[in-house]
């Protein structure tokens, strides 16, 4: 088991958090970036990772925990290998977001049941309304998901 898989941060992550904390006018500004770095390192944010990130920045663990429980892009539980988040807010809904969600859930049924893929519906807007309907796959935007594009996306995810 690597250090990271035990919920501990790698040396390079700790070093990067230290660098950021020293760079900003106040160290605590590095807390949110530190948690994102920790999440990228470990895969999610278990209590050990949250505590370690807070320690490197130099703030109480509770200060870090209250960010983790607030921001939607920070995860305190392990997630699926691939997380597909579909915008269903008004501009996307007006261009077929619900149909997109139905198609993705049907096409990826086996992968979803196996816990390998998650298709999440969100009411957040991702700023891609002119290329609706759309979804985020990890950090990537997948836009203009018409029939052909959503078929390719399903194929890509093993469906």
């Amino acid at each position, binding site marked *: 088991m690597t250090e990271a898989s035990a919920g501990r941060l790698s040396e390079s992550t700790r070093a990067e958090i230290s660098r950021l904390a020293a*760079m*900003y*006018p*106040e160290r*605590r*500004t*590095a*807390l*949110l*970036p530190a*948690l*994102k770095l920790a999440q990228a390192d470990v895969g999610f944010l278990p209590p050990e990772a949250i505590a370690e990130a807070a320690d490197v*920045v130099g*703030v109480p663990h509770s*200060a870090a925990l*209250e*960010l983790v429980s*607030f*921001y*939607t*892009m*920070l995860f305190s539980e392990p997630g699926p290998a691939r997380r597909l988040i579909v915008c*269903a*807010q*008004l*501009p996307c*809904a*007006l*261009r*077929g977001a*619900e149909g997109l969600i139905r198609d993705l859930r049907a096409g990826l049924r086996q992968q979803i049941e196996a816990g390998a893929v998650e298709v999440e519906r*969100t*009411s*957040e*807007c*991702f*700023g*891609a*309304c*002119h*290329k*609706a309907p759309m979804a*985020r796959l990890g*950090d*990537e*935007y997948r836009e203009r998901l018409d029939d052909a594009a959503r078929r390719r996306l399903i194929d890509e995810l093993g469906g």
Partner: protein
Amino acid sequence: MSVALNYVPVLLTHPGRTGPVSLDEYCSEGGYAGWRKALTAMTPEQVIEEVKASGLRGRGGAGFPAGMKWSFIPKAPGAKYVAVNADESEPGTFKDRELIEVEPHRVLEGVALCCYAIGAETAFVYIRGEYVEPADRLEAAIAEAEAANVLGAGCLGTAVNVKIHVFRGAGAYICGEETALLESLEGRRPMPRSRPPFPAVEGLYRRPTVINNVETLANVPGIIDRGSAWYNTIGTPPRNTGPKIFCLSGRVNRPGNYELPLGAATVRELIDDYGQGVIGGKAVKGVLTAGVSAPILTADKLDTRLDYDSVQAAGSMLGSASLIVLDEATCIVRAAALMEDFFRHESCGKCTPCREGTSWLFKILQRIEQGHGRPADLDLLVSLSGEISGKVLCALGDFATSPVVATVKQYREEYEQHISEHGCPFEPW
């Protein structure tokens, strides 16, 4: 046809392009000329006066005069900061994304000019966490500009230092609220502060701070390079000068960002001439002009000019100029429920009326849409909205009631039909 069709963009000067404009390319097209002019021939006060004379109003939504905001910063020595609001999260808004993706140096030049004007050496661009690619491009552009000594320590061989940090959010609409943004930058839960003190006096790290939207700052290089008199030839002076990027989405054939002078086009012209009309030739039911945060304009208001004052006179707000077009096949109750679902999700939870009220508004709208509405629900929606609006620390609570109150008022018979027929009369969409 709109006269605005002859307009040559000054912000998004590379229509259709998806890749970023490099430093060399930007400079070859006159970029950083305003920055050079300010550093070599203008005092900070002269920069502020030029921006004031331009009439530039904040493009993030509130429309507050940018030069006046800069002039509020105390002249006393000590650290000052610029915070750039790139937390673009309002439904229907995608203009700052394109500015950063394609014109990163125009944005950076505006940030640098703001720093110089108020005497700040450090700026933070607070960009929403989902904008990974735009944030990467902005960081690359900063590295380019620092390597060429345009930004960084001793900019262009002067004694002026400007360090611009890209700070990535992590998924929270509330960070677009300026004091929540500051809390987020300080590593705290992003919940709005009570004011006063205002950020110009006590902002980031309790120091004087200017917070401007990306598009606002992207206007500044042109103002400094070509002058406020030139800027006043664009738009409809004195209160609606300059260009504006209109985000057009919803049921139109060609959604997208369209840069036009303020007041040059009407809502109808934007939809027909730029958006190439409504899909399937259907009639417009209504248009949201400020994303989901202001009252809907009904179809009889389509000849409203797209500037701050005209949209306000028509009963709404221009806001970030994010126009979402609803056609006749759109169920207004479902649309309102979707919008309220957004606010319910995004309420930070600090103020009880907003935290609890937005959830109740959503639940009532949802039950009406699903056929379980009661005749008293419409008055309940309006009275509950009155318990939120104006009784909270930030504008989110006010925004959250707009889609409800306006649609109940303007489309009341559609709500009543849902209740009397115990269901939605529209085809699902």
